[in-house]
């Protein structure tokens, strides 16, 4: 789960990483009030889960509360890369003497957390990595050794931070960021820029934060951060139903079990000349109820002209899926054709159940490819 800037900063603050004082605002009036409370010049920052806010006009400086209200008016409702700004973060404006970059990510390849730090912050970090790789210090952490002070020293001295006060503050932030990363079950925490003010104070001016969905059960406070408004309405409805669903642009609705097979089904529909309307994964243990939910989500999309079920049972059982499809047809009025391909655990029983139901808009095909072809044909 990705967090908004203001949510990540809230966690930073909990772990003692310095951030500016700020308030969240959903309306220009709230923005004005926030600026009044904070005092002095403020920055009005769009809270959207995508990059490129600055270039899109989503970050503006405001001299006073009236100006903050005006800037919030300009930003709220803005469409940034498909994300409509609903909230802005108002924070005390910082003077910036230097901009650094600091992050920890979960390196899946090496299977260790990876620190990255450079004094060339504020720009796209990919550019630094490409143009001046020596300026980007990378250091893995052995998760059993855990964070040790030398790690911070290697980063700080390695990147050539020269001021002793900065060295001390940054080393401290590095240690706290590691704790924040581990104890929040983060997959990524990034501070870009990590600024130094003219007075020599170091603080986090932005935050990127991704939390492991599997660990949310032990972080109820972070789980509440979930911004359902940020997602596509169909995807939000799917999430409510517990269905993994990504909206695409075509007309063939797709439902598979398992991410790999579902992805492959999307590919095969394209190979068969069709245009997938979505990616939908029943997951490992799909039962009849899950199938009903998935069909409800898929058929809510008015573009969908046919639905393809591609199920290879393991934990998922073919008979359960068949029962779910019939249950859905009973409950909802689904007029569009449904093509079903069943294999694996209890597939034969499933096919038998579907055959006995003898529904006119239900087509059972023997292979994935044939099922895809049929669904594409029926969508025309």
């Amino acid at each position: 789960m990705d967090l908004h800037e203001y949510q990540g900063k809230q966690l930073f603050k909990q772990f003692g990483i310095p951030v500016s004082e700020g308030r969240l605002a959903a309306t220009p009036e709230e923005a004005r009030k926030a600026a009044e409370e904070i005092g002095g010049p403020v920055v009005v920052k769009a809270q959207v889960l995508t990059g490129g806010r600055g270039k899109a006009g989503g970050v503006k400086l405001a001299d006073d509360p009236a100006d903050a209200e005006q800037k919030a008016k300009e930003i709220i409702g803005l469409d940034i890369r498909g994300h409509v700004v609903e909230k802005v973060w108002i924070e005390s404006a910082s003077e910036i003497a230097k901009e650094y970059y600091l992050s920890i990510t979960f390196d899946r390849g090496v299977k260790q957390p990876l620190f990255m730090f450079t004094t060339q912050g504020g720009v796209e970090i990919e550019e630094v990595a490409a143009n001046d790789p020596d300026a980007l210090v990378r250091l893995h952490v052995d998760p059993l050794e855990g964070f040790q002070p030398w790690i911070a020293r290697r980063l700080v001295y390695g990147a050539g931070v020269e001021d002793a006060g900065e060295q001390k503050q940054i080393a401290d932030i590095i240690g706290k960021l590691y704790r924040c990363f581990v104890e929040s079950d983060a997959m990524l925490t990034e501070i870009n820029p990590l600024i130094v003010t003219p007075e020599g104070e170091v603080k986090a001016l932005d935050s990127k934060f991704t939390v492991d969905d599997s660990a949310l059960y032990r972080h109820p406070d972070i789980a509440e951060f979930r911004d359902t408004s940020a997602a596509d309405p169909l995807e939000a409805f799917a999430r409510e139903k517990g269905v993994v669903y990504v909206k695409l642009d075509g007309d063939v609705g797709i439902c598979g079990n398992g991410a790999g097979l579902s992805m492959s089904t999307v590919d095969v529909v394209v190979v068969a000349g069709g245009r997938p309307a979505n990616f939908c994964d029943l997951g490992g243990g799909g039962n009849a109820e899950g199938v009903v939910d998935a069909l409800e989500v898929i058929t809510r999309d008015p573009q969908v002209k046919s639905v393809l079920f591609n199920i290879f049972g393991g934990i998922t059982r073919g008979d359960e899926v068949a029962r779910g499809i019939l249950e859905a047809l009973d409950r909802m009025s689904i007029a569009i054709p449904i093509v079903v391909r069943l294999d694996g655990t209890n597939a034969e029983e499933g096919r038998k159940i579907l055959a006995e139901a003898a529904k006119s808009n239900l087509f059972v095909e023997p292979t994935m490819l044939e099922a895809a072809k049929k669904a594409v044909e029926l969508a025309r």
Partner: protein
Amino acid sequence: MAIIVDNDTKLVVQGLTGSEGRFHGLRNRAYGTNVVAGVTPGKGGQDVEGIPVFDTVADAVEDAGANTSLIFVPARFAPDAIYEAVDAGIKTVICITEHVPAHEMLRAYTYVRPKGVTLIGPNCPGVLSPGKANVGIIPAEVFQPGSIGLVSRSGTLTYQIGHEVAQRGLGNSTIVGIGGDPVVGSGFIDVLAKFEADPETKYVVLVGEIGGDEEEKAATWVSENMSKPVFSYIAGFSAPPGKTMGHAGAIISGSSGTAQAKKEALEAVGIKVGTTPTEVAELVAAAS
């Protein structure tokens, strides 16, 4: 022979008395796997259709001679189950459980790795050596014995490929679902090395998917270490650009993680890549 599980496997199922543990544990036994024990704390002394249940894995090892563990416990107990199995001396641990927190698996992985234990999963379908042993949830009836080693990040996609292969009259030495979580006990390279060393395996099919750079690394490893022909299928050619892990993801791996990039990396070292499950099955069939 075969890899990871075979006729010498003596299986203990951690979580045998749960509904999934029971269903698949008994299915595995029905297939012919030697299921010697179950473990459920507090149910020691009971049995599940004749399979004795113990309170601890240590008891299952000592009293029933278990050498392989299959884990079916809920996510929040899975790392503990892995530590328990490894510290009880189990050398092959297969964890089916999904949604295990990545940081916990990271610690468990780092602890287990130097101990010479083969850990498969979590969030994987398990390992099947057709005709010998099935440990996990793979629907064994789809597969038949043969000389093709199959390794995959995806569960159901594995079945699809195995199924397509079987329909062409070919069979598998072992099918390994390594799982798609951020931290899995064994990666492509670990399994490829086992296939390379297994005399029964003549060809290998590697089933990958978008994201990360495991397939690219496997390609390099294959070109440097493998004598047996490798074929591949990658899922997700038509996938829209998904959520990225901030900016850092791409820098770390130095790869875009797209299906096309993986296909190119594999083909660059001479691995033939099919764009559908059917196509990869045809490629293997043509080579056999």
